[in-house]
């Protein structure tokens, strides 16, 4: 088909587009604000990524700063030959992986348990109580943790001592600290994270459960064959997003919970950046680290999404 042979349909297309815009322009106008937000607060600051490849100066614009040595990769080389960074990298992966292992299934289990509760009032009450910790900052949680878990003055250890047991070094021994860290994370986020699963559960057709009951399926059977498959798309989506964060790290959680005895496991990339970048003023070095972190996260996100699609799931996009 040539362009000349088809003048009418082209005209039609234009009219259709015009009508479409006339009808929906308000929706596009509403989209404008978020787009402006993203441009100003997300894309323009990205020009500062160059700091990773340049010698930082507080008074120059990033475009004027001189390039760093080794074709601009000086700070990446410096980071990867820095033992503290490598430890931070290891700890970030370890803590995030454990978080995923323990913290990811927890809300699914809690959501299913809540879903099985016959007394709606009790269910709602439990749900609300479980949400609560989400609204506490990590600073408060760490304060509570010290009050409860300190070896001699912590409430739990005092009770243990009174019962004739020794103190458990929840916070002052590296191995124990890791589990305290992971479990406090679960405690804080499990209730909040069930919300999305509970929402997904309401979408499951109740007729399925009725049919299963008629066919003689018990509670566990129907959970296995109806509830879990019903949750599967949600689980997969959240898993992909979580895998995308495997190298990302929160700052306040490890920083607030850490102390001088457990730094060998509590130093993560975020705290490394804080100590060396913000406090040590090595902005180029830590921008390089941050960039590396983001790139790996994006790779993980894409890989996980591709894998999910390969197994016949919908993926995130």
């Amino acid at each position, binding site marked *: 088909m040539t362009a000349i042979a088809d003048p009418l349909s082209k005209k039609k297309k234009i009219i259709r587009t015009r009508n479409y815009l006339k009808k929906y322009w308000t929706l596009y106008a509403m989209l404008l604000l978020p787009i402006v937000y993203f441009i100003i607060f997300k894309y323009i600051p990205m020009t500062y990524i160059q700091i990773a490849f340049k010698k*930082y*100066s*507080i*008074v*120059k614009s990033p475009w004027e700063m001189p390039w760093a040595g080794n074709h601009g990769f000086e700070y990446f080389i410096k980071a990867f030959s*820095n*033992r*503290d960074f490598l430890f931070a990298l290891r700890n970030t992966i370890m803590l995030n992986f454990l978080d995923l292992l323990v913290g990811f299934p927890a809300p699914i289990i809690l959501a299913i348990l809540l879903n099985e509760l016959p007394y709606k009032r009790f269910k709602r009450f439990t749900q609300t109580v479980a949400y609560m910790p989400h609204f506490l900052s990590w600073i408060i949680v760490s304060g509570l943790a*010290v009050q409860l878990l*300190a*070896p*001699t*003055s*912590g409430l739990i250890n005092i009770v243990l001592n009174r019962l004739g047991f020794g103190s458990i070094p929840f*916070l*002052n021994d590296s191995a124990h600290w890791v589990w305290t860290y992971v479990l406090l994370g679960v405690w804080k986020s499990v209730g909040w994270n069930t919300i999305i699963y509970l929402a997904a559960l309401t979408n499951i057709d109740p007729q399925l459960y009725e049919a299963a009951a008629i066919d003689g399926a018990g509670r566990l059977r129907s959970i296995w064959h109806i509830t879990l498959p019903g949750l599967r798309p949600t689980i997969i989506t959240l898993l992909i997003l979580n895998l995308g964060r495997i190298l990302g790290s929160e700052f306040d959680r490890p920083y607030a919970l850490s*102390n*001088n*005895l457990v*730094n060998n496991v509590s130093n993560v990339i975020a705290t490394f950046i804080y*100590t*060396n970048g*913000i*406090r*040590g*003023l*090595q*902005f180029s070095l830590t921008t390089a680290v941050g960039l590396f972190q983001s790139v790996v996260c994006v790779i993980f996100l894409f890989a996980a999404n591709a894998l999910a699609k390969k197994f016949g799931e919908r993926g995130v996009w």
Partner: protein
Amino acid sequence: MRKNRSVVLSTLLIALLLTACFSGTILSASKFPELDANGRFLKTRSITVEIYDRGNPGGSKPEDNFFTNWIKEGMLRDHNVKVTFVPVPRWTEVDVLNNLLAAGDAPDVCVTYSYPTILTYANMGGVLDLSPYLTDEYKELFPDLWDFLGERFLLWNQDPVNGTVWAIEARLAQNKRINTFVREDWLKKLNLPEPRSLEEFENMLRAFKKNANLLLGKDADKMIPYTTSYDIGWRNEHLFTSFVPESITDKEMYINGFDDRRLLWPGIKEGVRVLNKWYNEGLIWKDFPLYGPGDGTEDNNMKAGYVGAFMHNWDYPYRNGKDSIHYQLQQMAGPDAAFIAVEPFKNDAGIYRKYLAPGNDRKVFFPATNDEPLASMLYVNWITKLENRRFLQIGVEGTNHKVLADGSIQNIAATGDMIMNSLQNIDYTITINGLDLGDPVLTAKSVALGYDLVDKSFIEKAYQLTDNNARYTPYYNVGEIKAEEGMGPALDEKRDNFLVQAVVAKPQDFDKVFDAGMQDYLRSGGQAIIDERRAKYEAFYE
């Protein structure tokens, strides 16, 4: 009528002339065109000044109270400069200042204890070079600075090669550091003498522990014979430096002097080993590693009366009036309870040696965003003027202090707007830390009186012991040590980490933990700093 008017006019004229004479500076108009003959700006200028916010319970707003208003009025009157104060949290000052500098929002006059921070920003072009204002040409504008700080402190940081001055140093009026404190009433109860040796000190701690029931009654299980914090180096320094050989040279002190906790000095490890022994004997507060900077738990233990001994800033238990450890302890544990300074640790030559810093203090600098350097310098000079800093340090008679018969000044704890948020308002007197009344004898007498609610004898003893047998660490101006740039926070963190770990290690693991930590410290930049300091020292001084 006409006669009257001329009388009024002539009186006015004489008054004007007199004030001009009293304000002291009659300047030649041609040299400083923006100033009049009295050093006032012809047009009003505005500057911002950093002020520490200590967040004291019951304190006033550090940027807006009686004293800041007094400064503002004075600067407007004497120099036609409007001053605005910018509060910066005291305990996170370096971090907050970093953020302000990076954002270009730093106050025109900045104060910090961290010279490396200033140097890093200076290397990025973020700090103003003060050397043009420290020339003979400007001397007549800043007579008080030259008089009080002099060349030593004004040009302390002058680069030996290119002459830049990124910051001027404040003076430490009382060059004091730390003291070792023990519970005087416990010593009496147990019939123990004041410890005069490491062995006696240890036996005292053991006696505290053994007699917990006698000393604390039903709270016996809360007994803490000795307390320390995560800041091992600072909080145990008298113990540690007693293991430093008397023969240490000035050069050694300097080369290994990057860490202000003396970590790199010879002998320190043996001091840490003693602490490790105490910890494993159960003589030290077990939970200390869990509490970070600014946490009040340890102070509360002292106030509650559970603590037998500790080391801290030379006047630590006596500071802060009603909130002081001394006062609170007496409320909780009875009027006899008190911490007293002792001197138990002698070195290999049998001397109770104390190592003190060279007498400089905070650093005052102007960020590059400061477009009123002259007004800012006039501010720094104004705040250095004896009558001004004297007023700020002692406040209003009757409210903040009373004058005793011998002329010495006794502090009164004021409340409300007249409260001093820092002892002697040191946060406002940025070029001096500590009391200076212009007369050394009067100053020494008054310092001892400066602690409201604390008996003079406690202060006098602490004052005397803290610099008894003092040796001052030398200062060598070799310019910038490149290897130190940006390393401070990371190395400090490493130091605190491995010292804490070494203290709580099992005795048989002590060497392993300490050596591994030290090796890591040296490998992560510590050794490079030592090497560069040695090379520069040898280049400039040998």
